[in-house]
């Protein structure tokens, strides 16, 4: 891979230098976070934080108003007040209030239902856009998709980059599309740029795509659509976090990170947060700067929180499905 020279929208060029990533090294560092032993109070802190960082997601052809209603209820109250009071009675301890999740993430046609059922809660509505997940349509249709999402009430746009263009070296096209989407989003919606790292394959590609996305205006960069295997991994997320760190050093602008797809357990979430804690520091340890694109972890996190309080294990059926 070489340096990439890109035309800026207002004229002029800038260069993204080749910044290689050593695969063995990144995987070793990533593994070190999975060996942290998180116990007691710090475990509870991280579980609560992880819950508040979740983007509860449904992206199915079969999505309906009913399904979205269900998802939004879960987003607002991940656990019913009844279950909390039950625990408090048994343990004679006051539980820290269980937070709502950060956002729900849906297709464009489901945005009105999300708006309806989230009501005046502070939960964000993220719409996957730009012909998610393959991004295989013309640019004007992608842009209309974004516009429509915002019109319908999306507060966050999860766009996908054109991986075909990226892999064939048409970096300019990828860049221009992100810039164009950003123009539509600016001031109205947060822009998350999905790289689909499972299709970019190499860490060098992930690093380059991360840098291009941030310079094109991403507020967040996100690993995956959830439709491709592998989804998020700890090493891929580490590459992206280090790109975010370098971008911050150059511009003083904080960009957020969202691993998505493949994160299923509270334990995994804790590993990710240890990584954010140690690589990025406290400034990134909040839902404005870090999100989990995962629905499956919510109930596992709740199980662990309840276990921390009561000392006993819970079943999945102790908590509502989403």
């Amino acid at each position, binding site marked *: 891979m070489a340096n990439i020279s890109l035309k*800026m*929208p*207002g*004229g*002029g*060029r*800038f*260069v*993204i*230098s080749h*910044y*290689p*990533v*050593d695969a*063995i*090294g*990144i995987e*070793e*560092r990533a593994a070190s976070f999975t*060996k*942290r*032993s*998180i*116990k*007691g*109070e*710090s*475990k509870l*802190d*991280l579980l609560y934080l992880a819950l508040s960082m979740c983007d509860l997601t449904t992206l199915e052809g079969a999505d309906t108003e009913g399904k979205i209603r269900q998802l939004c209820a879960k987003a607002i109250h991940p656990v019913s007040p009844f279950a909390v009071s039950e625990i408090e009675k048994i343990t004679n301890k006051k539980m820290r209030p269980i937070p709502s999740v950060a956002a729900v993430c849906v297709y464009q046609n489901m945005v009105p239902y999300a708006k309806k059922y989230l009501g005046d809660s502070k939960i964000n509505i993220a719409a996957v856009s730009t012909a998610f997940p393959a991004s295989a349509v013309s640019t004007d249709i992608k842009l209309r998709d974004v516009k429509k999402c915002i019109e319908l009430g999306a507060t966050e746009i999860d766009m996908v980059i054109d991986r075909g263009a990226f892999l064939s070296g048409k970096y300019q096209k990828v860049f221009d599309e992100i*810039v164009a989407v*950003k123009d539509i989003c*600016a*001031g109205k919606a947060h822009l998350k740029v999905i790289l689909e790292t499972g299709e970019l394959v190499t860490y060098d590609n992930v690093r380059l795509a991360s*840098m291009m996305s941030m*310079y*094109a*205006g991403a*507020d967040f960069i996100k690993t995956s659509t959830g439709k491709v295997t592998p989804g998020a991994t700890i090493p891929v997320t580490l590459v992206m976090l*280090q790109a975010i760190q*370098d*971008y911050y*050093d*150059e*511009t*003083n*602008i*904080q*960009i957020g990170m969202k691993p998505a797809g493949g994160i299923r357990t509270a334990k995994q979430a804790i590993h990710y947060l*240890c990584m954010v*804690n*140690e690589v990025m*520091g*406290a*400034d*990134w*340890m*909040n839902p*404005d*700067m870090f999100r989990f694109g995962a629905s499956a972890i919510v109930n596992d996190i709740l199980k662990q929180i309840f276990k921390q309080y009561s000392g006993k294990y819970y079943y999945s059926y102790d908590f509502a499905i989403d």
Partner: protein
Amino acid sequence: MIKKTSKTKKPVKAVKTVKVVKAEKKSKGFKIDYSPSLEGTSIVTIKPRNELFIGGKFVAPKSNKYFDTVNPATGEKISELALANKDDVDSAVKAARHAYNGEWGKMSGKDRGRLLFRVARILQERAREFAVLETLDGGKPIKESRDVDVPLAAQHFFYHAGWADKLDYLAPNKKVSPVGVCGQIIPWNFPLLMAAWKLAPALACGNTVVLKPAETTSLTALLLADVFNEAGFPAGVVNIITGAGETGAALVNHPDVNKIAFTGSTDVGKLIAKSIAHSNKKLSLELGGKSANIIFADAAIDQAIEGVVNGIYFNQGHVCCAGSRLLVEESIVDEVVKKLQRRLDMIRVGNPLDKNTDLGAINSLEQLNKINELVDLGKKEGGDFYQSSSPLPKKGYYFAPCMFSNVTSAHTLNRIEIFGPVLTIQTFRTPDEAITKANDSRYGLAAGIWSEKGSKNLKIAGALKAGVVWVNTYNKFDAASPFGGFAESGWGREGGRHGLFSYLKID
């Protein structure tokens, strides 16, 4: 790394506007300080008093003297060790000679291998016990004793067990035979692992051994004695005697010892070489180092940073091959220093038994004083000093990791081995200058190269005067890979095929 041309400024700024607002209103997140997660110590029983292991039994020293061994994490005494005098050394050597002339000397390579495989398996079975004891005795973080020291020690026994019945293939058309009784003296930085490095090849080759662990860290070696008995080794094949310099000198000068293997400081290594110069004892030395770690501008920088951290801060810097001299291409030095400083603050210094501790206790008060003295001297000589902000435990021997950037080759800290978590950083302009600076040392144990350009790596690796050259990694050890140094870093190799020659006569 982004290079912008001047014309690009306007559009980039336009894109940024929204985000700047966001950056301003960013909420401070959580700073998570991991709650203590202590490894339990109930698995280990530390005897209040430890005897000498001679002829398969623990026996009281003829000296009738004992000395204290302390846990550096607290500074408190944890046990007493027997002090072996000349007579004790003589008993141990006699026991070793007796075993060599007896059952062990007649045993086939296959059977020696069988016993060594047993040692390896028992080490794996009792891994946690060894890891906890190693950490209690030496102060290294439990995650290192658990994930590095003990598994590698077991691997050394597995690897050499495999050689025991294949020695005839080592030197075709030659006759190989054991050397005899080996005196082995090991250091305090990897007590169990160094014992394994020394014992496994010696035993695989059919020798018997008198091993002297370092006086501050003898407990895991004594526990290993237990393993040899459990594995069914004939009495006297392995003898372990504890004591300090005088005990070591008695062993080195004993007339019935055929070979001395020593790992430790260059000064002591020279003394040993002198004192056996007029004998026909074989000698292998693994001594000090001041190894260079070289980062080129075309390296994968973030991974190189990790390599530097692993190179110098692993095991509190108590590593003979530690990458203590960092050489950075001048064009990227600011970036590297900034990233290293940030990384230094993330290193958790603390109780070695805490599973989240990255940097444990300095091995002894003596060593801590030495590090403090040298760092003070470094500060006087100049350079930019940076030390991790990690809090230190109140009790025990601790030193926060630190680095000196902007120093030159003439700086004292670039000349002498510190054996602590202290890094120096110099710059270079061209590959030739990097090679010259890297080789500008009395030592030549190891070196590291960081570059994504393969042809450059090969060329530079060949030009470095160092026994081990790691490319795009550092501090990787394997029983199959020979280890040893150039110049004042030592004589001979340990590990791998090469390491066996130190323990064999070849006719």
